[in-house]
């Protein structure tokens, strides 16, 4: 372990944190992934809305596309034939990814709303204009950070020498990032923001399915309001999740050289896993104690 590796590791963790946060907010502005099922349902149960409604094949594949595309463009520009500086290559690559993201988002919004014609769900062009750029901006940040992490792991002049080519590693992190974003931050959007008119401290009662908030403090709720809300909790914790994963996973192999101390690296990983299991138990016990049982519960089992 040397200072350079440690610094790079810290940079990777920081980049991953930003990538996670922007990925989650991108999916919140666009209402991608699982919470979108409620947006989809809303019109059917009589609540037409002005929420962005995009679904680009699930978050992992779509983020894998942005990351892989940005990485391919970057590695083309970085190659001997073009010889562009790595920083600018990644920036241009991320731009291409953001444009793809914008196109796919737009067609999803138009397609999904059009397929609900019988419920009178309109296609609002001003929603398309104002939101798509916001989504693209977030996608740009995500793609940039993921490719930067992948570049740090593969660049020939840096200490970590990962055997996978740059686009493949970016693809892999893209899949992982999408899976994390859809597992963590999206819940804040789906369970809390979409159903804010119901009391805090309960999941969505199945009877209220589709009854999402469609009106804002003044006027109608837009998806940018949703990103504003989720940026207070859902986005940052998603960032923390991806940051922790990238950091912890690479930390093991940075402090212990995998060639000579591979077993220590594995033992450290196992220790981290055990600690996380214990921490989850503490979380569960504390939350149950703090919140107590639901007053509506009428069964015989004592809490």
């Amino acid at each position, binding site marked *: 372990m040397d200072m350079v590796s440690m610094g790079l590791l810290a940079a990777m963790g920081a980049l991953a944190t930003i990538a996670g946060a922007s990925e989650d907010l991108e999916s919140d502005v666009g209402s991608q992934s699982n919470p979108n099922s409620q947006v989809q349902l*809303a019109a059917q149960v009589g609540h037409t809305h002005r929420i962005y409604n995009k*679904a680009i*094949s699930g978050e992992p594949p779509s983020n894998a596309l942005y990351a892989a595309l940005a990485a391919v463009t970057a*590695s083309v520009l970085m190659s001997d034939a073009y010889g562009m500086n790595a920083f600018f290559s990644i920036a241009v690559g991320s731009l291409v990814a953001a444009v793809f993201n914008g196109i796919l988002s737009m067609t999803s919004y138009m397609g999904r709303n059009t397929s609900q014609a019988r419920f009178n769900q309109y296609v609002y062009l001003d929603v398309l204009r104002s939101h798509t750029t916001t989504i693209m901006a977030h996608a740009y940040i995500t793609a940039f950070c993921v490719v930067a992490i992948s570049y740090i792991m593969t660049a020939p002049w840096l200490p970590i020498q990962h055997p996978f080519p740059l686009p493949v590693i970016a693809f892999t992190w893209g899949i992982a990032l999408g899976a994390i974003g859809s597992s963590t931050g999206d819940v804040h959007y789906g369970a809390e923001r979409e159903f804010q008119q119901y009391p805090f401290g309960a999941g969505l009662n199945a009877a209220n399915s589709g009854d999402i908030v469609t009106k804002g403090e003044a006027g109608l709720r837009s998806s940018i309001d949703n990103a504003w809300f989720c940026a207070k909790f859902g986005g940052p914790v998603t960032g923390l999740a991806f940051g922790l994963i990238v950091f912890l996973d690479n930390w093991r192999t940075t402090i212990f050289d995998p060639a000579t101390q591979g077993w220590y690296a594995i033992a450290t990983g196992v220790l981290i896993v055990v600690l996380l299991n214990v921490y989850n138990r503490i979380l569960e016990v504390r939350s149950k104690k703090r919140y107590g049982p639901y007053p509506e519960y009428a069964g015989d089992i004592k809490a």
Partner: protein
Amino acid sequence: MSVAAGGGESKIDKTKLTMYGLGGGILGIYLAHVLNMITGTGYFSFLAGLGAIAAIVMGADAVRRVCAYGIGTGVPSIGMMAMGMGLVAAWFGLAVAGIAGPIIGIAIAMGFGYFVGMLANKIIKMNIPVMEEVLMSLGGAGAVVIIALSVVVSGQIGYEDMLNDVVLTGFIAVVFIAGALAILQPFNANLGPDETQDRTLVHAVSTGGLAMFAAGIGSLITVGVGGAVLTMLIAAAIWLKAFLWYFKLVKRDSAGVVGTGLLAEGGL
């Protein structure tokens, strides 16, 4: 989870689409290879891209057919599975069969698809009648798309060169995922009770253009600037045309395309 997926009836027959998809795909791959060989240039790589678009339309229609049934895990999974099978089959064909590689690869991918569909119905007991047939089309479409986009990147079919151009550079990542999304996105983006086949398929052409463009970016350093720029220009033109057409169909099908406005009365 999709509530009320399904969609309208099919106006274009699936056999016709499968025929055009496979035929167009194989034709595109071989034409690109042969013309590039004869002329000694990379200018004809775009033909493989056109073949990929044909196969993408076929795949998108297959996704559309199977998702009318509740498959339990959403649209993306089935496409990723098909691409996974298609990938192994396609590269097997290219590695062992030389010039016949694409055809062998596609045939094996369709075999994998049929087989996995049978496993899903017989052992997992999903009881989805179209599963075998749809996975067969999807596996075939996946293999065509992977081979065709790889040919766009490398310019020809020779295994060694493809290995260098597509795998060692890592461009296989974008070939895989851009192809997968091109097949999945059309139905996923148009999902809903008022989905129509022509709109979904026109959308497939536009996502196919995007996939071709993405592969074209990679070919900048493999087949040379001339061929790559030609591929990208043609892809962009196809995308633009399909996108405008798609927008026209959106206007035709939707309850209203409005500049701005308040909410309409919802519900049936």
